[in-house]
């Protein structure tokens, strides 16, 4: 009896959460795929017709936005790695007693609503705002110079909102490195660049990978930054999906686009996680 109870215990513990994930993650994904193959409209209802044409239309009409999203996500991710690595390195190896203070400061923006932060940046970057206006007055920038509405502004927003998600996993990976390993490398006459390249970098890579995962996916699927800081020439696929769902109620098209976005991202993510193991990535994410 006791043994039966014990073997049943994990299933009972997992049951409510597992059901939630099944009902509200797996089933909705299936509903989305099914909706993408349906035809009809909001008033008369949708019928499943196996209409593949929606996918063809989605690619012909919104190829540009889809590719643009992936490109912006990629550029933002590269900038994030370059920006975050030195900072994470310095905090991990030279932060001393203040390490947790630095980490706390990096997380500070998360105590402010994400939408509000992004709007705050629009306020700062606007043509006659507190940042650009003085520079224009001083003649350092031409009067016609503007940031808002350009691809740079959108990528800037993506980098800003993702930075902690890149710094933290890299920091965690670097922090785990035993200082004695570095000493050993030095004792074997490795010069600092060699120590970095042969010891630090390989050990930091899982952190970088976790960071890439946590920044590239949300950045590519973003629609807040591109809407608040961008213009019609910087439209990303997220904006299209949002508009097709919520403004046009073109559910089949919106579903087809979301499914394609998810397929592109998740195929990459899973290939990546298979190569590296999911545990590290999840632990880094939950910190």
């Amino acid at each position, binding site marked *: 009896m006791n043994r039966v109870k014990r073997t049943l215990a994990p299933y009972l513990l997992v049951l409510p959460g597992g059901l939630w994930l099944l009902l509200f993650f797996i089933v909705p994904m299936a509903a989305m795929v099914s909706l993408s193959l349906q035809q009809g409209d909001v008033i008369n209802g949708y019928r499943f017709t196996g209409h593949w044409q929606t996918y063809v239309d989605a690619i012909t009409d919104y190829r540009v936005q889809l590719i643009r999203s992936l490109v912006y996500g990629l550029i933002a991710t590269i900038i994030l790695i370059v920006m975050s690595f030195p900072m994470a390195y310095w905090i991990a190896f030279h932060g001393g007693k203040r390490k947790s203070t630095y980490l706390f400061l990096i997380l500070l923006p998360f105590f402010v609503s994400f939408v509000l932060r992004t709007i705050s940046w629009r306020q700062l970057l606007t043509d006659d705002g507190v940042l650009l206006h003085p520079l224009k007055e001083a003649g350092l920038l031409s009067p016609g110079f503007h940031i808002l509405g350009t691809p740079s502004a959108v990528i800037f927003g993506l980098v800003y909102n993702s930075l902690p998600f890149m710094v933290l996993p890299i920091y965690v990976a670097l922090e785990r490195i035993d200082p004695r390993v570095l000493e050993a490398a030095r004792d074997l006459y490795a010069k600092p660049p060699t120590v970095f390249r042969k010891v630090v970098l390989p050990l930091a890579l899982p952190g970088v990978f976790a960071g890439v995962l946590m920044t590239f996916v949300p950045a590519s699927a973003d629609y807040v930054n591109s809407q608040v800081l961008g213009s019609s020439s910087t439209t990303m696929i997220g904006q299209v999906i949002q508009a097709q769902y919520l403004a046009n109620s073109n559910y089949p098209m919106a579903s087809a686009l979301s499914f394609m976005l998810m397929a592109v991202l998740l195929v990459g993510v899973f290939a990546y996680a298979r190569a590296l193991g999911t545990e590290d*990535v999840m632990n880094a994410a*939950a910190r």
Partner: protein
Amino acid sequence: MTTSTLTPPATAPAPVRPRRRVRITGAGVMFTYTWLIILWLVLPIFVMILFGFNDPKGRFNQTWQGFTFKWYKDVFAIHELTSALWLSLVIAVVSSLIAGAIGTGIGYALGRYQFRGSGGLNLLLFATMASPELVMGASLLSLFVSLNSGLGASTIVIGHVLFSISFVSTVVRARVITLDRSIEEAAADLGANAWTTFWKVTFPIILPAVFSGVLLAFALSIDDFVVTNFISGNATTFPLYIWGATRVGLPPQVNVMGTLIFATGVLIAVVSNLRSRAKSKQD
């Protein structure tokens, strides 16, 4: 002996000094770099706090026009804004408690037992974490549309619990894995049954992890915009209100509420950090 540690012995090899100076300069550059990025990260927060004290003449709270406390006095003057904040709080409490309960179940099971299907469950949790919020919101909307069910506070809770489960269970699992099993064995040796052992011994040990999981879920819920925007129907949460209000001009009360939420969050974080530090000193 103390003097020798304070002043380097005269025989110290000469080449050490310049090398050291170079290293200090490098560290100085890094120090400045790190602080510049931190400054960049908090700049919008300064703007938010500052413009809560602004006295704008028109509808748009964009340029500095004078100092005032009146928005702090009238912080609840805009009914829609207050009810949006209230709705956000209610949804965050409800969904973080649900996610805390069912996420702890998963986290405990994964950390403690080896069972059939745990690999698939891990994969599923990872998928919910790795799939973009946009797709999560879109697929939930697809489900609700297909079911022809209404949208509102309850559908928002469904979505928020969904994206919080994986975070709660990851935090709890990490704690359960590092649990010292000999404490439970000791309890069993002293005649406690499995039920008593769990509630009197195991649960108090994992409680801090459960608590931080719930707090994480609360924070994720109260700030969520993307998923909420898809499945809210006519319900308006705090982030949705801000989003809607930007077109017509954001009232300064938004900045005040943002500042108050920020201050509360920072206070909670600092206090809990100090407490855990004091506790670790005690141990």
